[in-house]
């Protein structure tokens, strides 16, 4: 994999999701794969096409043009507003494990030359859960898209709202959705990419509000958890329930795109919707709406 993204504080990521060594074992097909080959293949299993989960840094590296990334709000983090049992410890643990400050990285960069605002959630950081900081960073990214008249691209990978921040996490659904609403009002494009897994509060807010919604093959996408649904309906669910392919068939998303083709798919979409354009005066916000 590429490795150009160097962030001032958190540096490059230690890749812990697979044990170190020359060989890696695919969790799906159980084949041993030469690690370098797996990395070259963007962590997609060459044998069974299983898409290993990526960190946010890896995601940005394989998506953006080399050295085009400028990060926003790197120092923005969550606090412990409710005094919730163990939350500060869990945050520290997540920071140590991922070398990230929070569960999302946002910034701007170019995809095959197209300037865009971009965000990537990191499932390795407390399950990519959305607390105040994740919501704030996503909302700010959306506002920068609005202010700079640039497209917005967000890669989601999240278990949902961050329980430890209680109802303040729930309010991040409203905060991010409202900010995305402004992008739509301004006629700016927002591309949402759902990666494994995208569930709960993130699906019930910005992830499902894209003009075009893409997903990686096999990604788990859904609002309620499988176990809760099975308990509710007292039936087993089919294996493919809530997969990207299932969602495509049900009409919930636009396309399933293999990781190796994602960058070019985004570039092509941006060529359609991301070109600079003159906005009609009628949809400019009224002066009163300006902060």
């Amino acid at each position: 994999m590429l490795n150009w993204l160097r962030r001032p504080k958190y540096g490059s990521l230690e890749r812990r999701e697979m044990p170190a060594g020359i060989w890696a074992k695919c969790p799906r097909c159980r084949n041993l794969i030469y690690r370098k080959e797996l990395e070259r293949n963007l962590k997609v299993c060459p044998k069974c096409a299983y898409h290993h989960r990526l960190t946010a840094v890896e995601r940005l590296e394989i998506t953006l043009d080399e050295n085009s990334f400028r990060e926003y709000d790197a120092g923005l983090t969550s606090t412990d507003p409710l005094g919730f049992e163990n939350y500060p410890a869990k945050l520290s643990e997540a920071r140590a494990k991922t070398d990230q400050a929070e569960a999302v990285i946002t910034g701007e960069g170019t995809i095959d030359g197209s300037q865009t605002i971009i965000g990537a959630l990191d499932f390795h950081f407390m399950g990519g859960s959305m607390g105040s900081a994740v919501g704030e960073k996503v909302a700010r990214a959306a506002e920068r898209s609005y202010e700079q008249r640039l497209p917005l691209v967000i890669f989601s990978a999240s278990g949902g709202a961050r329980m430890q921040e209680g109802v303040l996490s729930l309010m991040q659904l409203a905060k991010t959705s409202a900010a995305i609403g402004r992008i739509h009002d301004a006629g700016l494009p927002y591309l949402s990419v759902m990666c494994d897994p995208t569930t709960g509060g993130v699906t019930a807010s910005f992830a499902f509000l894209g003009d075009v919604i893409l997903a990686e093959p096999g990604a788990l996408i859904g609002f309620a958890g499988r176990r809760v649904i099975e308990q509710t309906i007292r039936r087993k669910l089919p294996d493919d329930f809530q997969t990207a392919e299932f969602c495509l068939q049900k009409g919930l998303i636009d396309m399933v795109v293999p990781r190796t083709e994602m960058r070019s798919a985004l570039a092509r979409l941006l060529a359609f919707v991301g070109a600079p354009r003159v906005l009609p005066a009628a949809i400019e916000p009224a002066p009163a709406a300006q902060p």
Partner: protein
Amino acid sequence: MTERTPSPAVDLDRQLADLEQEIERLRKRSREQSVSVDAELGPLLERADHLRVQIYTNPSPWHIVQLARQSQRPRLLDFVGTLCSDVMELHGDRLYRDDPALLAALARFEGQPVVVIGHNKGKDTKENIARNFGMPYPEGYRKALRAMRLAEKFRYPVISFVDTPGAYPGDEAEERGQAEAIARNIQEMSRLRVPLVVVITGEGGSGGALAIAVGDVVLMLQYAVYTVISPEGCAAILWHDASRARDAAEALKLTAQDLQTLGVVDEVLPEPFGGAHRDPDATFAAVREALGRHLQALREVPIEILLDRRYKKYRRMGRILEQSEQSAQSSQSPRPLAGDG
């Protein structure tokens, strides 16, 4: 939150429940056998009142959860029937079906036309089964959005009543886009061009509640709750033990008072001693007064200003720490963001 022993409030609950059962038994005997039980009843009633005072003077969060879920608590149709006149229910999302778990209606509040939406929990088991315990499918949320669009078209304010355990977690709800329906409503409510007043009357169950709970003003009854996850769900995930729901209820800060402190709720409406069901008329009066006052104030605000205020209100929610670029590198001295949450 480290307190793990059952709180004394629960023992009081149990004692009260036993007493009430005993009282009911005595009364039944008195009715059936036409004998006076006053001598026996008197002390029991006194004891029960004493217990109630103890319990309701300072109810624990877990006790408030019980009150919010109380089967006798006033339901949507009680509120709408009492507070509104000329109610005409609207049906269907025009896409799939009519969802009885969610009500949409044209109505008059103090003579003025409004659009009312709300979770439609039942009073008894039969009604609850018919209305899916107030847990909407996507089509319920889409019906609500359709009704809100009508409100926008005719410039009527929207009153939304929130009382749901959550959005229905079923396979068909998923297939029809539960997440999308919720996300869409949240986004559209954040920019709907008419005043929106929300009243959380019972259970505010996560995304399923928020899907009709974005408002210029969010009111909350004193013993309603509003939470990102049920206390039982939270306990099951955090401690793999749903029986620790009581601890989770404390930790989640889900009471009206907590939510006002956190800036999520604008005003807490007092309930009668012991809960809304003890004196529904007093509850309706409190809701009527607050609704009237806020709707009148909101009608006078130009829509662009109202939308800007609504945006900023939600934009501010949450608590964050922000470090400058320099200090971020040394990860020193985090400072709270000026003006946050």
